[in-house]
């Protein structure tokens, strides 16, 4: 399907449009960061600590007098960066593993998929914690840990698609025309397995942002004084009865971001999965 047609189908319904708009605003917020923040996000002012939301501080202030809105704005950059880099790591590693396993089959497939099974046997959060126990806490290491956790899912999805594509006539034709493996994989296989990978990328971004927030919440991800939504929640937890705003707004930011990625992922799946696409076309249903 052409990109134009995909986009037209994707944005037929209002939910995908709203999700895309929310994500566009988030990306813009992350890019503009400090220029958009009304106050200094890291500067402390004990005289105005734990102030409720007001005209001057829309989201109130924290226990050190820092503006919560400014910290939420700067936290967008951290969350999106960690999420994007982590998914980038798992995307590159997983797709490469899946391509090799699916295309070459036999012992290459056996070895790579059993390794993937081993990684898959660990519950995601626990795997990330174990990796961070070795590497030490911090946002860079959190990216690596989350990247490792989500690699097997990309490997499995890619391999499954490659298994069917490699039997297609055009791949056999390219092979009989004397094309090398690298050329066949790059020119004929990879472009035809992108649809499920795109869908998985959107869904994984949601879970990566959630994982980063969870790791920062328990003190293993982004470290203070950097504003991270998970870290802010952890700080707000201790003051939840005196200053609800400290926990409510960073949590809402995580929730809205993850929801937007999930909704967009679902909409992409509807469009890129031919069975769903056909159902949409016959029923005229939109999301």
């Amino acid at each position: 399907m052409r990109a134009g047609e995909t986009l037209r189908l994707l944005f037929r319904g209002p939910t995908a449009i709203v999700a895309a708009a929310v994500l566009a605003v988030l990306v813009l917020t992350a890019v503009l960061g400090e220029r958009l923040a009304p106050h200094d996000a890291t500067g402390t002012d004990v005289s105005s600590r734990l102030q409720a939301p007001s005209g001057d501080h829309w989201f109130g202030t924290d226990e050190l007098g820092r503006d919560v809105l400014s910290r939420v704005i700067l936290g967008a950059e951290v969350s999106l960066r960690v999420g994007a880099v982590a998914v980038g790591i798992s995307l590159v590693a997983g797709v490469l593993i899946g391509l090799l396993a699916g295309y070459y089959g036999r012992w290459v497939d056996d070895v790579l998929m059993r390794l993937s099974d081993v990684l898959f046997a660990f519950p995601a959060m626990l795997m990330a914690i174990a990796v961070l126990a070795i590497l030490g806490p911090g946002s860079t290491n959190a990216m690596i840990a989350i990247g490792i956790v989500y690699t097997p899912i990309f490997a499995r999805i890619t391999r499954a698609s490659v298994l069917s594509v490699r039997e297609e006539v055009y791949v056999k034709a390219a092979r009989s025309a004397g094309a090398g493996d690298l050329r066949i994989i790059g020119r004929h296989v990879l472009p035809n397995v992108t649809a499920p990978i795109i869908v998985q990328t959107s869904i994984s971004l949601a879970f990566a942002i959630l994982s980063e927030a969870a790791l920062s919440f328990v003190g293993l991800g982004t470290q203070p004084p950097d504003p991270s939504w998970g870290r802010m929640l952890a700080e707000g937890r201790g003051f939840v009865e005196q200053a609800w705003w400290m926990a409510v707004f960073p949590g809402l930011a995580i929730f809205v971001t993850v929801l937007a990625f999930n909704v967009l992922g679902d909409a992409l799946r509807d469009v890129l999965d031919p069975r769903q696409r056909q159902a949409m076309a016959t029923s005229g249903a939109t999301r």
Partner: protein
Amino acid sequence: MTRYALRRLAQSVAVLLGVSVLVFAIMQLVPGDPIRAALGQQADPETYQALRERAGLDDPVPVQFVTWIGNALTGDFGVSFRTGETVLSLILERVPATLSLAVAAIVVALLIAIPLGTLSALNPRKPVDWFASLSSQAGLSVPDFWLGIMLILVFAGTLGWLPSAGYVALTEDPVDWARHLILPAITAGVSSGAILTRFVRSSVLESLGQDHVRTARAKGMRARDVLTWHVLRNALVPLVTVGGVQLAYLLSGVVVVEYVFAWPGLGQLAFQAVESRDYPVLQGAVLLFAVIFLLVNLLVDLAYARLDPRITYRSAR
């Protein structure tokens, strides 16, 4: 079936071997001396030497691995660097708390999923379906640690109905045990409930289109009886297996929820082990979670193969 079961069992054993290599590697990959990292530079030399010998760190790595895995097979995961207690006893102490939380969470998930998924399937493209779809999407996206804090804020802080954290053993005071369990169980059960709602919806929708349902309706059977005896009975059988997978996720996925509610389970033990660099405890907890996860998945696959003979044929080919 037997051939499939044996093949699936052999796969699980192979994966378990790989898992144990990775868990063993935790101690090897820690930069520097893991015991020095745990005890600090001022540690008593005798304690340090005793722990080093007990952990066998002076042996060659392959010997260490064989000894470690041999001991692990007999339930000996070593001793805690911090407390000197055996890892097994520390883990066993925590099992009841984690198990009760995971089971309560799956009950919450089913209480959400069965009514909501069924109503949604019976009213496709109507407001209730739209509401179920939105709730399910929201349930999947809400961070459990944030939901936990919000529940504490409302039900413990503002209303004062329930305790904000802690654990009471069932044998000690059943009522207080239940009161402490409600908020963590809701927190942990919401995302599983969201996943199961989608499953129940599609399963009921599929069941509604079956010939025997149409026949029952044509016979003039009451709508409620058709739903109870023909639709739900068939639609909910596969829920046993999907629920099993969710329980496996919950057993190992309640780590952060335990942290929020100071729930003394295995997840909290793992966190404490990371904080205090108590690597044998971390290894024991991670290995146990992975084994539970593998075991439940194996049982679910076998149960599914028993329920659906096509699985067996496909795999045996």
